[in-house]
């Protein structure tokens, strides 16, 4: 187990190097020149050459890549091209915070809806409710974000006029946070219901549950103190670590609702060929994916003694 973790940790820097190399290659050899995007139609060859020299864009590919990695390791992720020289680190830091708030609210919605429904459905196994809830939740998780978002806008904003259409004030109390968070939570609700259902069913069959019932505890006490508490462990582990997957939903959701977070920044920088930002984004997401994967594998090994890594 220990050697396995050390091996994985030693491999991680190479993984990140490979990811950064591919991204660097794609963004440099891709179409569209960031300087052209920046200067628009009024570009002057002299100015273009000067900016290129200034940013080291006229150097050979490997030299540029090497310099980038050296600087990145030293904490300097370069400067954004689209946002005229703003350091990428600062730019990202402000956006990460916004996206994190959105993700946390989405996750809370997912847990608050998914866990009780999962417990309910597990206890009603064999009745019509079980397949009904499971297939309804599967339906909602099948809906892509770009379909649920306009429909929620239509219902809550245009028909019911409950909230302003879009935008962002930046704090958790903003009601405008709810719709995008709900949009992002919908796919995970189904996963949580199914996970919670499976894990509750497993706990319900255990001896200690029968023992708790036999000693005369109320059903409420059995469910909350004995069943739910044990069934929650795997669910919380998996859900907590799957935060990384919320990033993908954030791309579209933030673009639709005009929320200035990481997802919107990623889409914007892709179109502006702002590759210092694209690079930093990819690396950031790659780091979080790799860490999450590692933690999941380790968590599984601790939770399930049958899994052995060698």
């Amino acid at each position, binding site marked *: 187990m220990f050697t396995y973790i050390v091996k994985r940790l030693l*491999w991680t820097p190479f993984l990140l190097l490979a990811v950064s190399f591919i*991204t660097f290659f*794609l963004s440099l050899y*891709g*179409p569209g020149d960031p300087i052209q995007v920046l200067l628009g139609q009024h570009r002057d060859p002299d100015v273009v050459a000067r900016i290129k020299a200034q940013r080291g864009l006229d150097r050979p590919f490997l030299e540029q890549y090497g310099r980038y990695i050296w600087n990145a390791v030293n904490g300097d992720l370069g400067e954004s091209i689209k946002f005229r020289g703003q350091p990428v680190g600062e730019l990202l830091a402000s956006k990460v915070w916004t996206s994190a708030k959105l993700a946390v609210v989405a996750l809370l919605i997912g847990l608050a809806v998914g866990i009780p429904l999962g417990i309910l459905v597990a206890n009603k196994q064999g009745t019509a409710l079980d397949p009904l809830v499971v297939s309804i939740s599967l339906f909602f998780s*099948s809906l892509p974000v770009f*379909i649920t978002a306009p429909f929620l806008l239509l219902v809550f904003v245009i028909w019911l006029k409950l909230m302003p259409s879009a935008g962002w004030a930046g704090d958790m109390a903003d009601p405008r946070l709810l719709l995008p968070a709900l949009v992002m939570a919908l796919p995970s609700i189904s996963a949580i219901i199914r996970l919670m259902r499976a894990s509750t069913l497993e706990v319900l069959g255990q001896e200690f549950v029968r023992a708790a019932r036999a000693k005369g505890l109320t059903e409420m006490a059995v469910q909350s103190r004995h069943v739910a508490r044990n069934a929650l462990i795997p669910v919380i582990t998996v859900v907590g670590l799957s935060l990384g997957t919320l990033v993908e939903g954030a791309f*579209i959701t933030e673009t639709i609702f005009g929320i200035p977070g990481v997802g919107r920044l990623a*889409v914007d920088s*892709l179109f502006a060929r702002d590759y210092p930002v694209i690079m930093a984004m990819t690396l950031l997401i790659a780091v979080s994916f790799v860490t999450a994967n590692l933690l999941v594998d380790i968590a599984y090994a601790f939770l399930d003694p049958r899994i052995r890594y060698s």
Partner: protein
Amino acid sequence: MARSRQEPLGGAHQTETGDTDALPVSGFGHGLSLWSRAWDRLLRKRIAVGAMVILSILYLGGIFAPLLSPYDYNAQDFSTRNEAPSLAHPLGTDWLGRDQFTRVLWGLRTTVIITVTSVLSGALPLGLLIGTASGYFGGKFDNAVMRVGEIFLAFPGLLLVILLAATVKPRVVDMARALEDWGNFRGLVSSGFPDYLVVFGSLAAFAWVGMARLVRSQVLYLRQAQFVDSARAAGASTWRIMIVHILPNSLGPVIVSVSMGMGAAAGSEVVLSWLGIGIQPPNPSLGRMLYEYGSISILRQYPHLIIFPAAAVSILIFAWNLLGDALSDVFNPRTR
């Protein structure tokens, strides 16, 4: 032929359930194979049958869009703009007076083509080949494949696909232009062929990893099965063992993941077009329609426009997921 197919299938049944009357060693199939039994179980599930019926309708509708559509997908008629559904236009018309039914049908055609090509001809054979080889040979080859797979998985999928589609496409368009000049292929670029190729390529490039890892884990497990040992003892060659004994037995979970993967590929194609880097107008695509009709001003005035493309996409993905769910019940011995 029938014999070589039934032999390993009986084996899978035996290893999974310990059912000894289906011993594969003799090589003579006893009546029903695992496939026909799985098919029977699938047909007994009403949800699965419903999903298959819906999928056939959607796929046939998409494939035969040129024959079924009552109008030209690009024919504009400014006297009938933004109309609600009527007899002449069963799903209404859009802001250029184009028939919605035709456009949804053609958009479906795009999605359907992309799912079939990227999963069935891209991810599936690549994943099967790489996964089987990797699991069977192990060692350095396996290590290399898994490390490359990890690199792909470390990328945020959507970002990689967007990056690929955005950076590779101009080169593909250039190549298509050169091909047009070289041979006499008129209208290769305007047909949207490069768009299809790029979307297909970037989806397949990413989707093989999951498939390969799944197949590999199956192979690793099957490699130690008794029927493989007995085949080896009987002197079967490596290729024969891989193709005849191991591959067919690993297919159950693969079929489940293909079903889920088709839904995911449909979603990805629509996302790419939604973002404006997939299929380009005037070629109709559901993603583009959803983008245009999803803006708040269109929603306010003509909310009916978004319903049909949204329904087409969500029913397609939902049906694949339902089918995948049913299939995993069918192929998983523990849930029978």
